[in-house]
């Protein structure tokens, strides 16, 4: 569907280096990365809105690298909605149809369908300046989809929204994707969004693709330290593998199966690290005694750091667990985790 070959973009402050990507037809593809990683530049390059230094972009096997944006069969939705302030909601939605040869009946049918799907009925004659964030984003989606693009590019569509609207737009995106054959490419810095919406995706950092594949797979099996951190595997350390063990700062950690003797990394999700006052009698193969070095309030959860010899493990626990265990800094504590919770790369 979309194939990007050795793409290089140089915008001074933003760089993309040797990007290779492929996106399947009708996929929901998510580009994930921190702010400033070059995600938006990448979709703008697909849209033809930024100059490409070298490399090629194919949409439906057609080389679009040198085509102007209006000839690529794409639509773009920006984080700040970018609605035309001098046009009503209806005129915004219909805007793209001025430039596409569509019969009157077809126009009306598409409009009706999108107005229904995105619940725009009561907004049609208002101006963008009077709408809420969620409403603006719904209008922007309708405007982008009415031209039936091959690809819909979404630039952080949820980031600027209040939590309530975010849920609503997330659901809308899911339904819209399910009911159309448009390929969605979404940019986000939030891995939770990617996980809830995306089918496949890529993690991008400093203008380079770190990993791509199915979102589930990126989530479970990150292949670099950066990706591990990004998908929430806060416990990531350099390790030396000997037999079935991984040695981290002199600590022998059981990984459950025999591995090649080499150096690498192990990563464990903080929610997989269990804390207890006494050594746990369980099937968990790794049980260590350590000392709490910090307890941090993360809102719904607390993040507890435990030093075991030279290594530090982070565990996520609920507030009630924190109170039950009477955790405080400097206190002695036992940690335990399963061998299967360890991701090796």
């Amino acid at each position, binding site marked *: 569907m979309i194939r990007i070959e050795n793409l290089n973009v140089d915008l001074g402050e933003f760089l993309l280096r040797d990007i290779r990507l492929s996106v399947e037809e009708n996929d929901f593809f998510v580009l994930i990365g921190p702010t400033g990683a070059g995600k938006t530049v990448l979709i703008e390059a697909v849209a033809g809105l930024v100059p490409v230094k070298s490399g090629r972009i194919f949409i439906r096997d057609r080389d679009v690298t040198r085509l102007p944006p209006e000839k690529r069969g794409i639509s773009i939705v920006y984080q700040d909605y970018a609605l035309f302030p001098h046009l009503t909601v209806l005129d915004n939605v219909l805007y793209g149809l*001025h430039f596409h040869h569509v019969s009157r009946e077809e126009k009306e049918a598409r409009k009706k369908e999108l107005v229904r799907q995105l619940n725009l009925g009561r907004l049609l004659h208002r101006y963008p300046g009077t709408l809420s964030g969620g409403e603006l984003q719904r209008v922007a989606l309708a405007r982008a989809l009415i031209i039936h693009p091959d690809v819909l590019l979404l630039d952080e569509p949820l980031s600027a929204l209040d939590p309530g609207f975010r849920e609503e737009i997330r659901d809308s995106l899911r339904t819209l994707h399910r009911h159309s054959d448009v390929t969605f490419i979404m940019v986000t810095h939030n891995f939770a969004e990617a996980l809830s919406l995306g089918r496949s995706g890529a993690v991008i950092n400093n203008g380079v693709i770190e990993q791509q594949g199915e979102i589930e797979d990126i989530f479970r099996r990150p292949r670099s330290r950066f990706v591990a951190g990004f998908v929430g595997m806060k416990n990531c350390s350099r390790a030396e593998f000997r037999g079935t063990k991984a040695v981290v700062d002199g600590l022998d950690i059981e990984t459950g199966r025999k591995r090649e003797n080499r150096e690498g990394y192990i990563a464990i999700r903080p929610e997989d690290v269990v804390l207890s006052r006494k050594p746990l009698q369980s099937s968990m193969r790794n049980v260590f005694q350590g000392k709490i070095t910090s307890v941090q309030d993360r809102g719904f959860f607390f993040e507890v750091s435990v030093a075991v010899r030279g290594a530090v493990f982070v565990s996520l626990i609920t507030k009630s667990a924190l109170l039950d265990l009477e955790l405080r800094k400097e206190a002695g504590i036992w940690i335990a985790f399963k061998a299967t919770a360890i991701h090796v790369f």
Partner: protein
Amino acid sequence: MRTRELFFWVMISSGIVIMAFILLPMIQLMTAPSFSMLGKTIKDADVLRAIWLSVYTSGLAALIAFVLGTPLAYLLSRAKFRGKGIIESVIDLPIVIPHPVVGIAILSIAGRNHWVGRVLAELGIRIMGSVTGIVTVLTFVGLPFYINAAREGFESVPPRLERVSRSLGASMVSTFFRITFPLAGRSILAGGVMCLARAVSEFGAVVIIAYHPMIAPVMIYERFEAYGLKYSQPVAFWLVLLCLVLFLVLRMLTLYRKRGR
């Protein structure tokens, strides 16, 4: 702000001085001529012709500035290139050059000693003492005001809106006419009015190029020279009234822009 501080009183009194400085002469000018004088003046065919000439040459100047200046203003608002600062300075040049010098400079290329003058003569275009000449200098002095206002207007339109428009299938031209131009419209109009107002008030450059046909400021000067203050005031009254109307339109446009949206 603490009202008792000395600095507060300095600000207030300097403000009063400035207001008086601007308003006293204006009020005197506008109230000095008697109604009968004003009535007689406005019926005077020469006066009417001069004011009308002022209005339509200035209008033409603003129109030319609009047609020629809009693309450049748009380019300056969007493109980044080396030497952009130089181009912007060149555009501002007519503001700082003394007005009679503008007239002399234009005359110096319009004569037979310069190839431009020879080309113009070939085409049968006369600058010296003609309406064409008046429009030429008025455009010269008015252009910076139009281009700067239009450029600011274009700059206030987010490029993102243009990008979205392009992605929805609009070409660059359609995007400009459907999105950018309407959104910058108010600034463009304000720029046009500013250019027009600047042109109406021009004297120094015009008097070098064309004493006749006579525009209103030249006529005021002539009446003052020939008959004295009393006879120049009524013509000045009508010209000022015209400028005030333009000024009012401009203020309405800019104020509305600040409050609206």
